[in-house]
């Protein structure tokens, strides 16, 4: 971090009431439900949740990357650099995607084009977004590959994606995403397909790059360990909603939503106490057909009570920069104020 805590006054990106539904034959699937969050300059915001919790769809909706139909971003605003991305023209969006907002995807093999050299794919983004000449773009490409730690960068420019290992391919993806010096980098499960030792290398690289370049990062993952190591603040998603939001220390020290608590306790660690039996969350995540009118976690929650089945809880304050969508939090804060 450049100067202690990230600046909380000026969010670079602010998302309000984002709702995305997918039209299916069975009915509308509410994949993202009233999602609100802000991203401050220079911070790493972790987004954690299981598959189908809406992490990726939220990010894709923000940049209007979802095919419509079936997807329909029904409501919300996404403020970025003085404009609403959901109202922006296609031309504006093309300039922002890959320019001011960089994207890294989970699988580097499918997100790189196999028939073009790595150098071509790097130059493409530089020439398109920054209008660089061929020569200048080539020079900058070498610098970028060196920056992400690819040895012998100059000769590797003419190599094709299949000639790189998984970890190296992900480094190339990071170089492409950072080519135009973005102010926001969205990393969608960038280390999930990698081995742990390679994951450790990539995490270290991202920490260094963030310190040197100062962009804000949204880091999507299902791995709580990765979140603990890299994020400043965390959003926990479940069934298309943000169920808890906190600074990373608070989230692990004082998880307030029963889902977060359960999630943290199901993961076995490689050190410390070893439980005889794993805590498990019984049942499975709800299908998102139809508007939710109860707490989405109600059927699996060990502390659910009558009210949880009757109405959906909103995010309620737990502490400073810490909130959770659970009626238990509301009750606890009532007790505290009385």
């Amino acid at each position, binding site marked *: 971090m450049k100067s202690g805590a990230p600046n909380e006054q000026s969010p670079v990106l602010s998302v309000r009431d984002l709702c995305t539904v997918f039209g299916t034959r069975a009915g509308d699937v509410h994949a993202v439900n009233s999602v609100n969050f802000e991203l401050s300059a220079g911070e790493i915001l972790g987004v954690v949740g*299981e*598959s189908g919790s809406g992490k990726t769809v939220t990010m894709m909706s923000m940049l209007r990357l979802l095919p419509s139909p079936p997807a329909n971003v029904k409501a919300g605003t996404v403020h970025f650099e003085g404009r609403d991305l959901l109202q922006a023209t296609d031309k504006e969006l093309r300039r922002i995607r890959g320019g001011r907002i960089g994207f890294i995807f989970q699988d580097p093999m499918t997100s790189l084009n196999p028939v073009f050299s790595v150098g071509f794919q790097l130059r493409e983004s530089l020439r398109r977004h920054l209008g660089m000449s061929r020569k200048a773009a080539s020079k900058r490409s070498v610098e970028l590959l060196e920056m992400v730690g690819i040895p012998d960068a100059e000769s590797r420019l003419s190599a094709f994606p299949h000639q790189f290992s998984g970890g190296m391919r992900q480094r190339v993806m990071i170089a492409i995403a950072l080519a135009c010096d973005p102010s926001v980098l969205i990393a969608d499960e960038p280390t999930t397909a990698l081995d*742990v030792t390679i994951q450790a*290398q990539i995490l270290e690289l991202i920490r260094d790059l963030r310190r040197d370049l100062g962009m804000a990062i949204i880091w999507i993952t299902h*791995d709580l360990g990765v979140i603990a190591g890299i994020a400043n603040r965390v959003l926990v998603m479940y069934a298309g909603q943000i169920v808890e939001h906190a600074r990373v220390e608070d989230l692990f020290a004082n998880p307030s939503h029963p889902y977060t608590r359960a999630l943290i306790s199901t993961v*076995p660690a490689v050190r410390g106490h070893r439980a005889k039996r794993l805590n498990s969350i019984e049942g*499975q995540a709800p299908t998102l057909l139809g508007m939710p009118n109860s707490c989405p976690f109600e059927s699996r929650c060990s502390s659910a009570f009558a009210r949880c089945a009757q109405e959906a809880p909103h995010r309620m304050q737990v502490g400073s920069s810490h909130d959770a969508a659970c009626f238990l939090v509301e009750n606890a804060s009532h007790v505290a104020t009385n």
Partner: protein
Amino acid sequence: MSPQIEQEASQPLVEVNSLKVYFPIRSGVFRRHSGNVRAVDNVSFSIGHGETMGLVGESGCGKTTAGRAILRLVPITDGTIKFRGKDVASASPEGMRKMRPQMQMIFQDPQASLNPRMTVASIIAEPIKEHQNLGRSETIERVQELMDAVGLNRDFANRYPHEFSGGQKQRIGIARALALNPDLIVCDEPIAALDVSIQAQVVNLLADLQSSRKLSFLFISHDLGMVRHIADRVAVMYLGQIVELADRDDLYANPSHPYTEALLSAVPEADPEYERSRRRILLTGDVPSPSNPPTGCNFCNRCPKAFDRCFRDEPALKEISEGHLAACHLFDNS
């Protein structure tokens, strides 16, 4: 106890000795044999009755091939695999067919390992029909028992795999593996494709089944936390070889091989304060190709502690303390 049973109890269920699985590389117009991918290179270990052996390592280290070789699902190049004292590697086709019911497998991808055109009942009944002579109603009864045992609703017996979630599909795969009352189940990354909350459900189910049915598991995984939870002993593989093998608590508390140390230190922990203060051993570079391993120790080009001997001689797997084996020259003089 009859003498035969007594002998069985003292003997491990599975004994793997100097197992080698090489895949030939053919090149040129004549497809000449030009080299080998040494997927498993001189691996020895044993699995006791009712024991869970964890096999960990990164992708491409040969852990899956080793597991498949025990069931003879891949051709074995060299070495012996004794299952209840009988060699699997040299068994005749008929002899192998007699042994198969006792050894089963659970696969990584529950979607790909179930036939989409078969109902759940017919998937679970298939091994029973193949190996046992049961009547129709007995088979149905057996299938229903198995569905109960793995926590699937009996009423879903006539549904197709796509109607189930990932965790439930994995339960179907487990029921199929249990159908013939095996002694050994090779679990090849059984939870890698599942969500965290579902992983715990499946692992608890496996643990329950193990204690109620006296099963032995070979648990192949790259998830070091989960292996620590479920395994009794753990073997760490790197580039086709076992580099360290020890009791679970011993291995996690005193990792001795530099690769095991690096692997454990790379695992991110769900504890922000610890994450901030810990010192990681960062390995440089990638795993070399198993068709062209380095001379000397396989790990020498990435090892932070390598010295001249490591680039010359291959270290043997030897005991460094009771029940703790490691293949590293650092322990030669101790």
